[in-house]
């Protein structure tokens, strides 16, 4: 028997999963076993309603079997625990499997409360908690026209959103006189009701449902205590949650009067070896129905098992969220229940904004707040409330609209212990620590602390904290691209465009110093190309290009190059395939299919490139720009032309898009894809620009990428016609070209834009900066001046001269040696080269003259 600690976790919801992550860090040697009663591993319940706007179960998943395997976690799904033997320290599942534990974690969560209304147990009367519930809701919605949510709390409104997304006429029925009674005051509740009704959801407050009866026009009829009725085809109960404490009840752990497993400050139950965390746990007579306190309990339990004495001391129940598209925020004592509390209210009925702050009798400290319709001040107010920061002289200024520069948070006043990101529990001190360790910009602080990578609500605050901290350190935030230019890439772009600068020499002369380097030269070359679109191998530009651009091919480890002709959309004729095969055979090139649906030919020596390209150009091929920081490929699936499921011509659109943007030089490479239906075979959501066909047009996704840090693209706009689609892509790409940093992919670019996706949508869709005409014109210039760089090159004797291995000899580079593997060439290893040279020494000397003559015919 091993003496490693055995930890068994019952339940794999968000909190159970968070515990697994924590314990794997704090106790890497422990044997961790997860028993989940659900058929799948943990997923994001907070964003459950997005299932109806197209998110799949996979996308909602918080982990995967592979991830748990790599953490060394044993896990079992559909493994409902039915028995705990506290004396023997074992748990047993419904299928009679037993597991030994040293520490047992109950993370069983909660179940939806269904009020005891006659008729509530029929088909089409459902609850909203798991993915299986959603599947049932979807099924029922498919056979329904009208849906009712019983319960107007936070979850009820989420559920209403789900029904609305499913296309039903949606009603919300609430027993209390207002919506979200826990978080909002009456004024806020009323404002929310008005706003939600305008969005097409009918709200009925002060309605006590007495019976759900069969009906004629609709499937059911809800009869209320006041005599009124409401017809509906389905009913969704969201009338609160109850802790899932059945196991604790049956096996004699202490429970609260109204349920919930009683825990102490370390999350231990009445049995010290059994912990309870999340919604099943009762701390200080309170159940916490939010994810952040659950995560906090998970951290406390994990560190307690590991021997530390971190304690759970309650949790702030403030929330900020978007319900049915309406911003709602609630902080602290929203109802002004503190004795002596004073309130300030601001309401703008025209814009449907309601804001209230609650302050103490001395008007020194903020106790609570309610925000409906506009949550801009949420982060600032929360910091005031959580950290007891002294209020400004006129507290109302915190919520009154000001022309500009509303008094924000005096960032210096934020104590080090202040939580900046509650999703990942990142305090200001963690950020400072990360910066001490060398993270010196927003992006790197984000990636090493995880701050602002959860809900993103703290993005603005994080930025302020980082910038203030940099200022405190006397760090001037330098964005110079290198020692030769005291400018960022964006600034250089503006200089080049505004001053109409056409060469690097002129740029260096007017704005730089020294001779330039391998950073500023290719950057300037790229900007010059995206602005003026001259041939990149014109004399003044040649020396600026990285080797790949300079030779219009991709250098490999041995100094040879690979050749990638454009195969737009991945569509290629048999004749062209034959040409590729013939060329590859003639020059003995290694062939490989790329991830971008084209063919890469490896092992071309520098001096062979022009001959190879002459043949390819003659056969109708164009350069594929695989060597450039520019558009690479537009991948496509076969689409409606052939596929049984396709709803649009994805290949045709991919070819059009690739034809439009080919050759566009940009801050980094750009990849795109077009899928012909929602099955997404072209993997468009992993691309900078992804297009997915819908019944009505195209959905546009932006700023995704694969690679080292994969990122799913964000849905940018829906159901676009082709013309609008192209217009948005034009604007987006040009805005990226203008404003991104050197070698910054679109994903990082967007994350660094203040306001992120929403800001980008405002700029591109709503033209908030008034620059869209200009962006389109500039793109149209680039499209109109496209040339195939290889075609231009093989027609220029001057350019061809540069493709010689030696300027004074027709010899080849004898360090380039290939051997055969799987019937194709590959570069020889060092040892293989030695052997080759030994064996061929005499032969090389004897055949030298022949080689010289045949090769001499080559390039010139």
């Amino acid at each position, binding site marked *: 028997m091993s003496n490693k600690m055995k930890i068994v976790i019952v339940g794999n919801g968000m909190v159970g999963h968070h515990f697994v992550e924590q314990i794997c860090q704090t106790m890497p040697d422990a044997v961790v076993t997860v028993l989940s009663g659900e058929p799948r591993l943990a997923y994001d319940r907070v964003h459950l309603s997005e299932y109806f706007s197209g998110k799949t179960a996979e996308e909602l998943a918080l982990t995967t079997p592979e991830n748990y395997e790599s953490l060394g976690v044993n896990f079992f799904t559909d493994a409902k625990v039915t028995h705990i033997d506290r004396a023997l320290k074992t748990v047993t599942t419904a299928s009679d499997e037993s597991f030994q534990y040293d520490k047992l974690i109950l993370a069983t969560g909660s179940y939806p409360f269904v009020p005891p209304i006659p008729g509530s147990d029929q088909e089409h009367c459902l609850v909203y908690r798991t993915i299986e519930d959603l599947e049932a809701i979807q099924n029922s919605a498919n056979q329904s026209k009208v849906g009712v949510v019983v319960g107007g709390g936070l979850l009820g409104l989420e559920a209403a959103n789900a029904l609305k997304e499913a296309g039903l006429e949606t009603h919300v029925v609430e027993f209390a006189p207002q919506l979200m009674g826990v978080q909002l005051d009456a004024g806020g509740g009323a404002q929310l009701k008005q706003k939600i009704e305008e969005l097409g959801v009918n709200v009925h407050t002060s309605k006590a449902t007495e019976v759900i009866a069969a009906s004629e026009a609709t499937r059911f009829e809800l009869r209320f205590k006041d005599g009124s009725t409401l017809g509906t085809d389905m009913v969704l109960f969201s009338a609160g949650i109850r802790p899932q404490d059945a196991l604790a009840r049956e096996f004699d752990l202490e429970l609260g009067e109204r349920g919930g497993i009683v825990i102490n400050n370390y999350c231990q139950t009445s049995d010290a070896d059994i912990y309870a965390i999340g919604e099943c746990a009762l701390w200080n007579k309170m159940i916490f129905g939010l994810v952040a306190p659950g995560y906090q309990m998970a951290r406390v339990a994990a560190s307690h098992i590991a021997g530390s004495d971190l304690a759970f001391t309650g949790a702030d129940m403030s929330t900020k969220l978007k319900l049915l598209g309406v911003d709602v925020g609630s902080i602290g004592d929203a109802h002004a229940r503190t004795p002596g509390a004073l309130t300030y209210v601001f309401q703008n009925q025209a814009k449907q904004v309601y804001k209230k702050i609650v302050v103490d009798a001395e008007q020194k400290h903020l106790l609570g707040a309610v925000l409906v319709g506009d949550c801009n001040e949420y982060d600032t107010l929360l910091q005031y409330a959580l950290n007891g920061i002294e209020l400004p002289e006129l507290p109302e200024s915190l919520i009154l609209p000001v022309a500009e520069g509303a008094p924000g948070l005096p960032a210096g006043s934020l104590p080090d212990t202040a939580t900046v990101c509650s999703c990942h529990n990142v305090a200001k001190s963690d950020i400072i620590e990360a910066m001490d360790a060398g993270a010196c910009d927003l992006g790197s602080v984000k990636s090493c602390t995880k701050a602002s990578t959860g809900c993103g609500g703290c993005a603005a605050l994080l930025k302020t904290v980082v910038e203030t901290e940099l200022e405190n350190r006397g760090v001037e935030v330098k964005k110079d691209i290198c020692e030769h230019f005291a400018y960022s890439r964006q600034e250089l772009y503006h200089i080049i465009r505004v001053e109409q600068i056409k060469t690097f020499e002129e740029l260096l002369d007017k704005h730089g110093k020294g*001779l330039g380097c391998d950073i500023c030269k290719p950057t300037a070359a790229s900007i010059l190309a995206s602005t003026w679109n001259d041939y990149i191998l014109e004399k003044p530009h040649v020396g600026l290009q*990285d080797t790949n651009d300079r030779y219009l091919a991709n250098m490999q480890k041995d100094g040879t190059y690979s050749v990638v002709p454009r195969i737009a959309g991945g569509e290629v004729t048999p004749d062209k395939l034959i040409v590729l095969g013939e060329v590859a055979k003639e020059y003995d090139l290694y062939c490989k299919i790329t991830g971008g649906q084209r063919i890469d030919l490896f092992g071309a020596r520098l001096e062979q490139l022009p001959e190879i390209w002459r043949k390819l150009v003659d056969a109708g091929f164009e350069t594929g720009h695989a060597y450039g920081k520019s558009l690479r490929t537009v991948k496509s699936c076969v689409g409606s032309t052939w596929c049984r499921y396709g709803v649009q011509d994805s290949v045709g659109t991919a070819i059009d898009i690739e034809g439009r943007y080919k050759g566009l030089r940009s801050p980094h490479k750009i990849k795109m894809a077009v899928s012909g239906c929602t099955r997404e075979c072209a993997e468009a959501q992993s691309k900078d620009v992804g297009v997915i066909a819908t019944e009505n047009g195209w959905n546009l996704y932006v700023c995704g990428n694969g690679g080292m840090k994969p990122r799913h693209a964000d849905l940018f706009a829906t159901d676009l016609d082709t013309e609008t689609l192209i217009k948005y892509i034009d604007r987006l790409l040009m805005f990226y070209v203008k404003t991104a940093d050197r070698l910054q992919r679109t994903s990082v670019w967007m994350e660094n834009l203040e306001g992120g996706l929403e800001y980008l949508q405002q700029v591109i869709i709503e033209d908030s900066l008034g620059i869209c005409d200009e962006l389109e014109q500039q793109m149209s210039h680039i499209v109109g001046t496209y040339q195939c760089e290889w075609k231009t090159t093989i027609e220029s004797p001057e350019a061809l001269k540069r493709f010689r291995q030696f*300027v004074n000899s027709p010899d080849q580079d004898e360090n380039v040696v290939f051997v055969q593997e799987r019937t194709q060439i590959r570069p020889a290893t060092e040892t293989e080269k030695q052997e080759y040279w030994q064996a061929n020494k005499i032969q090389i000397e004897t055949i030298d003259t022949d080689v010289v003559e045949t090769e001499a015919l080559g390039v010139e």
Partner: protein
Amino acid sequence: MNWQTLCKSSDLIDNAGVCAKFNEEQVALFSLFEGEQQTLFALGNWDPIGKANVLSRGVLGSIGEEFVVASPLYKQHFSLLTGKCLEDENVSVPVYQVRIQNDLVEIAA
């Protein structure tokens, strides 16, 4: 000193490199301009870190006062004057003396 002709000066590329064969060696020739002032440098073409004959295809520039070429493979910088690698002092490439005479590039043999 014994000078041996390598190639024509028209074979050079402004602010970039070309490769010439000097007996059995590969020499990277760099023609650097500071304004109108042309200076010629020559290093071994062999990149000792990337292990390929590619230095002539690197981007030229300056780091501080030092004229350098960046390896096209892994971007280390080599001094055009001394051949020393700026990132790793234990690594260097050979340096050759070169000049232009009557539109011909000559190397010290």
